[in-house]
């Protein structure tokens, strides 16, 4: 009887130790669901969803505090992916947060730019280079097209230019035209 209790107690201690150790050793950093949601979001960091960036929106979705249809840059496809991940029904984009636009990058008219650095401070991904009193330039490859630099510009010299289709970016179209008759 005593031996049995002893063995059980020892076992309990041993298992407890292992569990305790693995809780520390294999600790998952952050919120794994929010991480997965964040991986689906387009990382435009535009804030159209009502949160200050994609990550906060992902966290809000994970906590059930925000709906999945608030991200216009992600489009219907993004909503579909989020619905799939969360096991809920996809729904149309919430128009209140804006509508999807063709992918664009910001362009600074360097003749008009006064070098005030306000846009640099607004850019969420540091895609504008320049210094005080020197004209600024967009690093097009890093611009997410979030439009956050437009309102702060005091001389309205920034415009959004849709990315034109060129050969390296060309995609095969869905052959629907030929398939009209196929159910």
């Amino acid at each position, binding site marked *: 009887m005593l031996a049995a209790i002893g063995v059980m107690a020892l076992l309990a201690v041993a298992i407890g130790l292992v569990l305790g150790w693995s809780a520390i050793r294999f600790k998952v950093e952050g919120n794994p669901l929010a991480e997965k949601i*964040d991986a689906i979001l*387009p*990382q435009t960091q535009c804030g159209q969803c009502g949160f200050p960036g994609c990550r906060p929106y992902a966290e809000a979705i994970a906590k059930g505090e925000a709906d999945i249809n608030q991200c216009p840059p992600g489009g219907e496809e993004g909503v579909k992916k989020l619905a799939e991940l969360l096991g809920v029904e996809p729904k149309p984009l919430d128009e209140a947060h804006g509508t999807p636009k063709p992918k664009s990058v910001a362009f600074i008219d360097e003749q008009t730019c006064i070098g005030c650095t306000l846009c640099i401070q607004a850019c969420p*991904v540091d895609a504008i280079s320049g210094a005080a009193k020197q004209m600024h330039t967009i690093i097009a490859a*890093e611009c997410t097209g979030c439009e956050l630099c437009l309102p702060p510009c005091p001389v309205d010299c920034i415009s959004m230019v849709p990315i034109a*289709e060129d050969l390296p970016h060309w995609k095969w179209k869905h*052959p629907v035209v030929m*398939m009209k*008759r196929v159910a």
Partner: protein
Amino acid sequence: MSRELFKFKGGVHPPEHKTESTSRPIHAAPLPKKLVIPLRQHIGNPAKPVVEIGERVLKGQMIAAADGYISTAIHASSSGTVVAIDLQPVPHISGLPDLCITIETDGRDEWVAHAPLDYQAMEPSQLRMQLRDLGLAGLGGAVFPSAVKLDPGASRDCPTLIINGGECEPWITCDDMLMRHHADEILQGVAIMRHLLGSTDILVGIEDNKPEALDSMRSAAAKLDFAVEVVAVPARYPGGGAKQMIETLTGKQVPSGKLSTDIGIQVFNVGTSYALARAIHHGEPLISRLVTVTGHVLRPQNFEVLIGTPMHTLITLAGDRDGTTGVLMGGPMMGVPMPDLDVPVVKATNCILVKSKELFPPLPKALPCIRCTRCADACPAELQPQELFRFAKAGDFGRAQEYHLFDCIECGCCSYVCPSHIPLVDFYRYAKSEIWAREKDKRAADLARERHEFRQFRQEREKKEKAEKLAAKAQTKRAELAAVPAAEGAAVSDADAKKALIAAALARAQAKKSDAAPKNVDQLTPVQLHQIEEIEARRTKIRELARKPLEPEEKNP
């Protein structure tokens, strides 16, 4: 001589239509007035221009340099003047223009200085650099830079070298004609490949519907001082596909997602081998190639064409006819429709196939898939085309990839046999390009996330640094002030020090204010000056009042 051959799965037997263009000898196409030479003719990075508008260039002069490892140079196909470096129509199904160098030829066809290379004395890596600078790329269709393919890598070697003379696609005969007339040079190229790759087993695979090419290659091979086995393989489309040729000749299959070099085999097209021989033994860059012009033309034949020659001039040479319904670059199975006939011949142009209603009757309307699995029987890549079609159509690209979409060689066998006439390959091309685009978007999103996180980290850090700096400054100020009363022997508390600090700041502000003398007072009337004086006096009073607000007797002066 008799080698055991293996049979790849699937395949089809479309009508060959080869004799149309093999009955006439190879003609050199005349020098056009204008050459439009695209900078993106190969897989990998497009070449970077190294000439300027207005510059005179010589035939064979490099006009754009390779950009990176997987890239290759571009050369002037004839002498003349560079008149434009801009977007021009190129042979691409999209009809989108791409960067090209346009040369107005001067008719002199004057060569740049060039000399043979002593390849045996050269460092292999140096030799490969030379080949890259000579613009060598695979002429079988994929246009992969040859210098990369000729690099066996540090640990791998390539015991088997296969020269592909299959040319299984209907209508095309440029490789056939090349083997008939330039067998010796093709094998000179093989010797160079063997030197670079260290191959011991060298096979030339030619479909048995080309007896003349087989004969000519065999007699040329007999003259060599190393063993080259010329093998006749049964004609069955797509037997000239690299993977199919490997399986037919060796019985080995290239595993899914692997390269043939992973199983010790490298494959080159006969045209590439010929170009390699010209490059090494004559120092000539890749500036021309054989092009079959056939189909709905009066005199179907093969031309030796300078890269950059507009396609319509070749069709005119071969005799254009009424009733043309379209032009394909390549054959009927894998060729791509040309949106415009001004587009130039490029390194990938093996054939210009002119279509007519009689030769290529329009396909009936596509019907739903009846799941007959004929496409699966025909697929040489052993895929399930009907499933791939279902997933691609529904946009379920993940499942399409699970079904090995990327093993599809786009040979068109499935579309060819489909009783419902579904343009299956178009769906696979669509799915592949969607997947690539998504991967690109994903990479861009990852970059944006990283940059955003770094920005947040940077802002946090800057805030902290600023706070620290302020604290340090306050500290030193306080110490400074504390030093004065300490000298007088009085102990000063922290609160006193603060008070002193504020007083000092106030005094500074005061001094500044009194420094601010009234401006623009030189030309005022005495009355105005008097007014100003009064105002100033009032101000001083108010200031004094503000300083001693608790003394009531000064409230009513």
